[in-house]
């Protein structure tokens, strides 16, 4: 009972928003474009004579999400204090998003958003918006000066919290998996990008440095992987990357990425290996 009575759970979205946003669309063109855009992180306010006082730019941020399990403000406050006392101080002054998913269908007492905002403000937590709100909640959020965020990523909650009947990630079931496999017979060379939309990708040769292979499904490389490989880009966390010679510049699964700028970091570097996602961590294992 203790676990499920927990009124507040905190977790940080481990995935960087860059990848979350970029690959969600499964749209190859957008991937490249967004990637370029996201290079400009942080906002820039410039004020030049004759140019204009403001500049509107897109930027992508990673925000902690606070998921509410009940509407009882006292319980929320109490539990947050416990969490903060436990050393989650890096949330201090952090912009937070409130996830209302678990209480949007709840009957009974409505969540008092303005009070929640001020309570959390006292704890140096700044709510910037809500997500998964029902129409009434959305309306009240706007009144309370909060943004209503749409969509975002359906984040899995970490292994400890996964009940046996854990839902599959939404995207996994939604991918219109075509069943066919994209096969590349030639080396994928520097500057080339291959995207296997809604399917697995097989490369019968090598993926060279500076090349990029992307798939909504798994990626199999029967030569050397020396470039970048991004599998399961439509949030398919079950996707894997296999290579006869694993020497990637970057490997990513469902937006969780790792750069390999120190080849000696893994003893499997240069060997036949696979990469998969376990509890939001990329794992390299021998083949």
């Amino acid at each position: 009972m203790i676990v499920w009575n927990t009124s507040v759970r905190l977790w940080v979205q481990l995935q960087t928003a860059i990848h979350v946003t970029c690959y969600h669309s499964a749209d190859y063109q957008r991937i490249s474009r967004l990637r370029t855009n996201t290079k400009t992180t942080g906002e820039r306010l410039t004020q030049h004579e004759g140019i204009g006082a403001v500049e509107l730019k897109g930027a992508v941020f990673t925000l902690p999400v606070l998921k509410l399990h009940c509407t009882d403000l006292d319980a929320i406050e109490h539990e947050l204090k416990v969490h903060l006392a436990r050393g989650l101080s890096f949330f201090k002054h952090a912009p937070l998003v409130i996830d209302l998913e678990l209480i949007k269908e709840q009957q009974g007492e409505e969540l008092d958003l303005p009070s929640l905002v001020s309570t959390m403000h006292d704890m140096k937590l700044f709510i910037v918006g809500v997500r998964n709100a029902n129409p009434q909640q959305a309306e009240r959020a706007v009144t309370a000066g909060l943004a209503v965020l749409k969509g975002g990523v359906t984040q899995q909650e970490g292994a400890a919290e996964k009940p046996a009947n854990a839902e599959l990630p939404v995207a996994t079931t939604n991918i219109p998996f075509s069943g066919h496999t994209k096969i590349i017979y030639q080396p994928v060379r520097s500057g080339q990008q291959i995207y296997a939309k809604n399917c697995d990708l097989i490369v019968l040769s090598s993926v060279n440095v500076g090349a990029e292979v992307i798939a909504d499904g798994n990626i199999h490389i029967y030569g050397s992987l020396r470039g970048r490989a991004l599998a399961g880009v439509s949030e398919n966390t079950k996707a894997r990357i296999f290579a006869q010679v694993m020497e990637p510049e970057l490997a990513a699964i469902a937006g969780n990425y790792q750069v390999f700028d120190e080849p000696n970091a893994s003893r499997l570097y240069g060997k036949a290996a696979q990469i998969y996602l376990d509890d939001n961590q990329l794992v390299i294992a021998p083949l």
Partner: protein
Amino acid sequence: MSRVIVVTSGKGGVGKTTTSASFAAGLANRGHRTVVIDFDIGLRNLDLLMGCERRVVYDFVNVINEEATLKQALIRDKNDNNLHILPASQTRDKDAFTEEKVGNVINELRDSFDYIVCDSPAGIEKGALMALFYADEALIVTNPEISSVRDSDRILGMLSAKSQRAIEGEEPIKEHLVVTRYSPARAETGEMLSLDDIQELLGIDLVGVIPESKAVLQASNSGVPVIRDEQSKSGQAYQDMVSRFLGEDIPMRFLDAEKKGFLKRIFGA
């Protein structure tokens, strides 16, 4: 049936023009009617290496713009009647190139030559793309260093995506690897990439290895393709390269460092 061969590399300064000049001279020397075209508009060098810069009257751009006929622009080599040069323009820019116009010139050349060698400029801009567009075969010139190999890889990607053969889905361009400025001693010590490394990275057939040699610079300065310097290792290596290109099976030479003396071998370098 004439063949169009592009000599390209991506990176600059690796020896494209030197290789173009020697390759064309080698083909001509064996009795094939050969023309070598300088695609490096604005930075023409080929005519210098071929020793005919003072005989340039009309150039490739003049022909493209129909200001001169091919006959007027082609320069015949002093020493070899089979060899012709179509020089680049020093004053125009590469905007003169269009696929159609370059195609017309190459088609006209096909009538009178067996081999059309296209000396590509460095980079992956229009000039380089034009040089490779009509190619049937490609000599990929690479130095044994990582940036050169990377750029060659990029150009190989272009060949398989941006050439006429690729676009029209014909048989792909035949790719040959030429490693220039190779120093066996430095490859042995790991200072340079080894031939195996380069081949492993690029995955194409090796047609020639040209050792680093002073003869190359001397030949360039005197306007004679180094292949004609039969005493030099580079000249001999280019001869071998031409033979291999023409289908002969010749073992690679000049791959081993010169043997050290007995005492040096015992006491180290």
